[in-house]
């Protein structure tokens, strides 16, 4: 027994493998936040007046809002005046070919294992890389343009497609939605914009990689995806950050609008720096992600693999407005050492015959706390709606916590909502069975955990699934030292 605990401990104290700092120059403005800072950000980005007003409006609302305290998280005080709100790689991020890109940046991507070039061409993935909130590279733009698909940095979209931005920005996540969304709306520096025109099936996976790099900065990116009638897109998002002793703030907003019969799949592998074994450093990840199924029979699915961040506060949600629309949430959240996660989803059923599915797999190790929090709300008009939720927690070791907080509110007689949750420890008999077949305990744990999470991992696009499995392995198994 003791031996097994020892191995469990060794296995679960694996170090963060993505902790390197990229040494390319950034341009920052001084720390702190006030209306002038917002004006500077807006001016630096050469934004139209409506964007400045959007930001100022959000900032004024943010000032009135208290920091949310309802999550099952211990959040140390954050000094919002001690953060740099704008940090961009110094070179203007407009590259025509990769030759122009800072070699350090290329190196960054190589370290990340992101094959930005040939391999992605083969894989057919278009990538928009965002470092310190500024988009540095969008590949495949021309190929996509032929189909009328817009996939570019948010700043670029503001310049070139202001009407679309004006129409859709804030539609799913209004500036006043919550404390962190308001902050993001005030100061976001860049992000990705994606527009799929009517009837178009995006021929390749679209992908954004986010990375925090500069010290003392907050990262506030904004993603907006609009899928017109009968369109389809699969969108991937990956995140990493270097190891730093101080905590870094990440407060992103993702908005998805799906119109009639449109389908958007959004997949995330989040691996922000989680802090070291003693809980020092790491990213505070406060993210608002929401999709609106505005159109009839539209569909939005969120799939997330969360292994990083010191604190995760994140609830990718679906507002099911259109009749027959469908929302899905599939999540694997791993917490280890001193990590804390409070994550889940909201499914708000407004239209008739709407359906939602929630699959959440939490895995806790070390002295971490991992909470699922979810809301399923069926309004009186959402007749014949269905929800099924399955929330499982797996505990590795006796010093971690697994918590489940579902909220279910149903307001009509023809809808059916089912929720199930279980909590269990990793089975000693399963580990012994593997041992008996010559498999070491740490490999056995890796195997069992991947098996436990498989239902969700299977929902990820192929390229991502492999990366996600590796990440789970790094978080919980792998060799020691």
């Amino acid at each position, binding site marked *: 027994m003791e031996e097994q605990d020892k191995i469990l401990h060794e296995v679960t104290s694996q170090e963060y493998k993505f902790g390197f700092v990229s040494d390319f120059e950034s341009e920052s403005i001084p720390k702190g936040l006030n209306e002038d800072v917002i004006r500077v950000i807006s001016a630096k980005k050469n934004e139209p007046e409506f964007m400045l007003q959007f930001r100022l409006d959000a900032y004024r609302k943010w000032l009135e809002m208290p920091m949310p305290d309802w999550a099952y998280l211990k959040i140390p005080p954050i000094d919002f005046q001690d953060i740099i709100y704008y940090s961009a790689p110094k070179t203007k991020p407009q590259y025509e070919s990769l030759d122009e890109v800072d070699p350090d940046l290329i190196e960054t991507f190589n370290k990340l294992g992101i094959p930005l070039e040939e391999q992605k061409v083969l894989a057919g993935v278009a990538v928009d890389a965002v470092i310190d909130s500024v988009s540095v590279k969008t590949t495949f733009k021309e190929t996509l343009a032929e189909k009328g698909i817009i996939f570019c940095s948010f700043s670029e979209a503001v310049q070139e497609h202001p009407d679309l931005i004006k129409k859709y920005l804030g539609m799913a996540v209004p500036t006043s939605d919550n404390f962190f969304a308001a902050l993001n709306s005030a100061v976001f520096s860049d992000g990705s914009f994606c527009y799929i025109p009517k009837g178009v099936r995006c021929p390749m996976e679209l992908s954004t990689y986010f990375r925090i790099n500069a010290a003392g900065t907050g990262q506030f990116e904004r993603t907006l995806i609009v899928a017109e009638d009968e369109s389809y897109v699969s969108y991937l998002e990956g995140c990493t950050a270097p190891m730093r002793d101080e905590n870094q703030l990440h407060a992103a907003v993702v908005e998805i609008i799906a119109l009639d019969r449109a389908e958007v799949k959004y997949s995330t592998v989040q691996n922000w720096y989680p802090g070291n074994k003693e809980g020092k450093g790491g990213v505070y990840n406060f993210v608002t992600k929401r999709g609106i199924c505005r159109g009839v029979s539209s569909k939005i699915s969120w799939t997330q693999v969360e292994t990083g961040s010191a604190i995760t506060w994140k609830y990718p949600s679906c507002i099911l407005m259109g009749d027959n629309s469908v929302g899905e949430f599939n999540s694997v959240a791993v917490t280890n050492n001193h990590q804390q996660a409070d994550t889940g989803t909201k499914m708000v059923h407004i239209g008739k015959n709407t359906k939602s599915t929630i699959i959440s797999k939490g895995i806790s190790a070390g002295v971490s706390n991992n909470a699922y929090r979810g809301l399923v709300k069926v309004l*009186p008009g959402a007749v014949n709606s269905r929800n099924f939720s399955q929330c499982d927690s797996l505990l590795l070791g006796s010093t971690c916590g697994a918590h489940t907080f579902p909220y279910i509110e149903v307001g009509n007689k023809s809808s059916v909502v089912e929720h199930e949750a279980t909590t269990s420890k990793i089975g000693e008999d399963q580990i012994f069975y593997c041992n008996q077949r010559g498999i070491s305990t740490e490999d056995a744990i890796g195997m069992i955990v991947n098996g436990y999470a498989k239902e969700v991992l299977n929902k990820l696009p192929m390229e991502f699934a492999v990366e996600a499995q590796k990440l789970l392995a790094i978080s919980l198994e792998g060799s020691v030292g």
Partner: protein
Amino acid sequence: MTLTANKVALSEKYTELFHANRSLLDEGSSDLLNRMREIAIKRFEKVGIPGFKNENYKYTNLERVFGKSFRHLLEYQPVDVDLNEAFRCDVPQLDTDVVLLVNGWYYAKNQPLNNLPKGVVVGSLKQVANEQPELVKDYLNRQAGLSDDPIVALNTAFAQDGFFMYVPDQVVVEKPIQVINLMRAEEPVFATQRNLIIAGKNSQAKVIFCDHTMNPVDFLTNSVTEVFVGQDAVLDIYTIQNQNNQANSVNSSFFRQEANSNLLSSVATLHGGLIRNNLKVEMAGEHAEANLYGMSFTDKNQHVDNFTNIEHAVPNCLSNQVYKNVLDEDSVGAFTGRIHVVRDAQKTNAFQRNNNVLLTDSAKMNTKPQLIIDADDVKCSHGATIGQIDEEALFYLRARCIGEADARMMLMNAFAHEVVQNIRVEPLRDRIDELVEKRLRGELARCHACDKN
């Protein structure tokens, strides 16, 4: 927390009432009751009457009922009730010892219970606290005094009387004790009731609470019950809530279980206005077992909220909860069930189920099951469903010549029976089955026997 002006005014109404009547509350009450009042009213002041913003009262806004105007009964008011005539629940073959409480006060004309086993005390909390303080002092407020619920604090500030029961170690009370809580007044009344039940080591007892109203006026009851289940003790607490639809109540029960004890709590809610049942169980000794059941049948504007909190503080305990609600017309139901397994409470088994049937589009059900697990070698699960009765089962019955209405009734009865069947007193079980069926048929106003006048 910033309180809105209305909320402050509402809460002040109660604190002012307290300060204006402090001497009246203290007068004649034991120091055991009086010594916590000041602390309690301060605790109440901090939060005030909870509204929607309070996470624990998210689905039940108490501001609405606490905002109405009531006459407060701060001293015993003689009310004439003929116990023998009207208020013995007519449960066939159920032989009980009956105790009556009127508007939260122990009824002065209760017949003494002479046949109780030696050492068993059943009576008025106020009286026992004065005359036998040694029975009360180690228990009163030991659980409720730790609660941060403002309504419990309000009860502690105002508490003067209620039901008291003490069962010494090794004693078995064969006959169930039936406590009839009666509300009787010509005008709206607010009552505070404080109950205390102590079951000694290896003792056994069954208590049945029946909540009734005698007049069609607004009532509000703030009731707190503390229960101590000693080592190896077996205790059943049954509650039948069947009041008029203007009668509102907040009932907070606290159970503390010692090693190897076995608790059964079953609450059936039939008629009533806004009812909130708080139930907290603390597993304080290993190998304790708690089975907690609840069912409600609501229509019109009824509002029933069951809120449970099971604290597994030690290893090797079992808790099992099954709560079911059938909601008709414009009624609203809520269930919040929290299971908390503290660090090192290994080998805990904790299960919870909440199943609900909505019969109309204007009825509403909110459910919030929660697991907070800080130990790894545990088996914990919860499941919640909100839906309708099984259409396929309905069709099957109809295909066997059973009319739709009867078939529905049959299925709803079956739905409820899963809860009813756990009642360990057979005549009571049959009786509740019958009450449930009548309730579902819309034929039940009050229990028969209470219906005579």
